[in-house]
C-alpha cells in the first residue's frame, strides 16, 4: 500500500529517503544523541512552516500558486491571539473561529480566481496584501495573552499534555507509556494531514484537483466539477494556513503582524512543496510530500547548530542546498530523447 505512491512519484520517494538520511545522521552527530527534548524542539520548529507548506501544495496541484499563505497564517495568528482566551470552552470556540476565518479567506481567494478569472499568482499577491493589512490592524504591535497551560501542553510531549490537563492519571497511566514521549506538535501535524488531506484526496473534488493539474480542458470536458475543485483547493489552503497561524499563536502566546516573516513563510513554502516532489506545473504530488519537504528544509538548518558552522555562511549554504535540491529535478531532462518534450 505504501509502495504504490513511492513507485508513482519518484520525487516523493527521493525526498523521503533524503529526509530520513538527513534526520538519522543529524541525531547520530548530535552530541547528546537522540533525546526526547531535542525531538520535541525539532517538531515545534517545524509545525508552522509544515502547515503553510501543505497549504501551498493544494493550489500548486491545480497548476496555480498561492502567494497569500504566509499572510493568511499571520492574519489568523493575530486573530487567535484575541480569540483563544478565557475558559476552555471559549478557547475551543476561539480556535474554531480562527480556522473558520482562515478557510473563509481561502474560499474568497478561490472565488476571485474562479469567477474573476484572474491568474492565481497575481490574485493571491493582492489578497495577501489585504490579509497583511488586516493583520496589522488587529496587532499594530506584537501582543496577546494566550493561556500558558495551553501553550505548555501543545508544545511538549504527550506526557506533559496529559499531566497539564489531568488526563490518564496525570500522564502516568500504563496504557499511555508507549506514546508518552511523542511530541504533541508532531501528533497535531499528522492528525490534520492524514485526517483532512488523505480523505479529501479520495473524494471526487480531490481527484478533480489532480485532473485539473494534468489537463484542465480535458477535466472540464469530462464533466468534472472544475470550479468547485478550484474553490475547494484555495479554501483548503486557507484552512491549512490558519492551522499554522493558530499553532504559531499558541506557540508564541502572541500574535505578531510581521510582513518580512509572512513573506519568508510564503517563499519557504514553495521551496518545501518542490522538495517534497510536487510539480509546479500541477497534477503530481501531494500534501504529505510537502511535510517531508519541510522536514528536509528544517533538518538542514538544525545541522548548523551542531556542526558549529560560521553563522555568516549559513544563509549561503541554505541557498546552495536549495539550488542543488531543485536542480536534481533537472536530471529528468537528460533522459528526454524528443526535444519537444522539454516544452511540457
Amino acid at each position, binding site marked *: 500500500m505504501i509502495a504504490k505512491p513511492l513507485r508513482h512519484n519518484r520525487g516523493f520517494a527521493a525526498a523521503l529517503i533524503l529526509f530520513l538520511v538527513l534526520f538519522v545522521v543529524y541525531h547520530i552527530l548530535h552530541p547528546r544523541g537522540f533525546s526526547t527534548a531535542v525531538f520535541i524542539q525539532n517538531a515545534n520548529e517545524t509545525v508552522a512552516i509544515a502547515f503553510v507548506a501543505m497549504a501551498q501544495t493544494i493550489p500548486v496541484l491545480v497548476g496555480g*500558486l498561492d502567494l497569500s499563505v504566509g499572510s493568511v497564517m499571520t492574519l489568523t495568528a493575530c486573530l487567535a491571539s484575541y480569540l483563544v482566551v478565557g475558559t476552555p470552552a471559549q478557547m475551543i470556540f476561539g480556535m474554531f473561529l480562527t480556522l473558520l476565518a482562515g478557510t473563509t479567506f481561502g474560499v474568497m481567494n478561490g472565488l*476571485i480566481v474562479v469567477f*474573476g*478569472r*484572474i*491568474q492565481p*499568482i*497575481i*490574485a493571491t*499577491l*493582492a*489578497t*495577501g*496584501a*489585504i490579509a*497583511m*493589512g*488586516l*493583520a*496589522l*490592524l488587529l496587532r*499594530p504591535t506584537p501582543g496577546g495573552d494566550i493561556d500558558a497551560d495551553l501553550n505548555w501542553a501543545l508544545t511538549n510531549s504527550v506526557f506533559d499534555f496529559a499531566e497539564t490537563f489531568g488526563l490518564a492519571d496525570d500522564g502516568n497511566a500504563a496504557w499511555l507509556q508507549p506514546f508518552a514521549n511523542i511530541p504533541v506538535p508532531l501528533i497535531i501535524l499528522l492528525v490534520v494531514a492524514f485526517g483532512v488531506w488523505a480523505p479529501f484526496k479520495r473524494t471526487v473534488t480531490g481527484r478533480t484537483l489532480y485532473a485539473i493539474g494534468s*489537463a*484542465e*480542458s480535458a477535466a*472540464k470536458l469530462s464533466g468534472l466539477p472544475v470550479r468547485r475543485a478550484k474553490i475547494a483547493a484555495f479554501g483548503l489552503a486557507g484552512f491549512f494556513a490558519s492551522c499554522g497561524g493558530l499553532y504559531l499563536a499558541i506557540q508564541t502566546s502572541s500574535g505578531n*503582524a510581521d510582513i*518580512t516573516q509572512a*513573506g519568508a513563510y510564503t*517563499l519557504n513554502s*514553495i*521551496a518545501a512543496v*518542490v522538495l517534497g516532489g510536487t510539480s*509546479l*506545473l500541477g497534477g503530481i504530488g501531494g500534501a504529505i510530500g510537502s511535510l517531508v519537504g519541510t522536514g528536509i528544509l528544517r533538518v538542514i538548518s538544525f545541522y548548523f547548530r551542531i556542526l558549529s558552522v560560521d*553563522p*555568516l*555562511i*549559513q*544563509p*549561503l*549554504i*541554505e*541557498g*546552495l542546498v*536549495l*539550488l542543488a535540491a*531543485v*536542480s536534481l*529535478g*533537472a536530471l*529528468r*531532462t537528460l533522459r528526454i530523447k524528443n*526535444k*519537444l518534450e*522539454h*516544452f511540457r
Partner: protein
Amino acid sequence: MNTQFSVSPENKPIFIALGFTLVIILIGTGYTLITQGAAPMLMPSYLAQQLQIGAFLGVCAAGMMMVILLGHIDLSIPWTLTAAAMMATTVGGPWAIPAGLAVGLIVGLFNGLGVSVLRIPSMIFTLGVDTALRGLMVAHTGGFAPQTEATPLMRFLAADRVLGIPVALFVWAGVSIAIAGLLSRTGFGKAVYATGAKESAAFLSGIRTKWVIVGAFMISSLCAATAGILLAGYSAKAYQGMGNPYLLPAIAAVVLGGTHILGGRGRYIGTLIGVILIVVLNSVLSIMQMPEAVRQIIYGTVIIGMLLVYGRETTSRN
C-alpha cells in the same frame, strides 16, 4: 457603434490604468484642497520628486516585464539589486558601475541557463538564486551594513538634477526607450513574444528559444542591477534588504500595465503607466497619512479591482 473610439483588447488595460491614475491624482488633490487648501500633487516639483523615487521601481519593472512576457518570473530581483549595489560601492572609483552591472549580467546568465537548459521552473530557480545571493552578501559584508560609500557618479545619476529634472528620470527614460525599442523593433523582441505565447511552436519555427530565455533573464537582472546602483547612489550607500520592497510592486506594475502573467502579450507603455499608477497611489496614501495597515488593504483592493475591470479572460489557454 462608433469605431473611431474602439480600443483594441491589448490596449484596453493601458487606458484603464491611465484613467485610474488620473482618478487617484484627482482624489489626492481633492483631499489636499479640503484639508490644506493647496494642491501639492499638481506641482511639477512634487511630481518630479515622486517620479524620481519611482525611477528605481520603473527600472526593475522594465526588466521584470521581459521575463513575464516569456511566461516566467524573476524572484531573484531583491538580492540581485542589493548585490549589484554592494559590489558597486565595494569596488568604488571608475569601475564601480561596471562592477555592479557585471553582477547583474552574471546572475542573469545563471538564472537563464537554469531555466532554459536545466528546465527548472523559474519560480523556484530564481528563488534559490535569491537565497544564495543573500548568503554570498551576508558572508561578504559580515552581516552588517557595508561601510563603503557610493561614488560621486552614482550619486549624480540618482540624486542630482539637470535643468530641474532629476537625472534618475533620464536613466529611467533611457532604459524605457531601450526596452520598448528592443520589444517592438528587433527580431529578439518578436522572438520574446513568440516564445512567451507558445514555446514549442516558436522552437519549431526556428527560434532558438533557449537563448531568448537566457537573454531575457540577463536583461531582467541587468535592470535590477541598474536599479541597485541608482538606489545606492540615492541613499549614498548600499544596505541589507534594500531590494526587498521592489519585487512585488514590480510584478504588480507589469500586470496592471496589461502584460499577461502567462506570457506572450503586453506592451511596454503599459508597464510604464503601471509604475506611475503605483507611484501615484503610494504618494496619495502617504499624503493622507494612512497607516501601513490601511495602505496594504487599499493596495491589494486596487490590484484586484483593476484586474476585474480589465475583463475576465477566457478560461483555458491550452
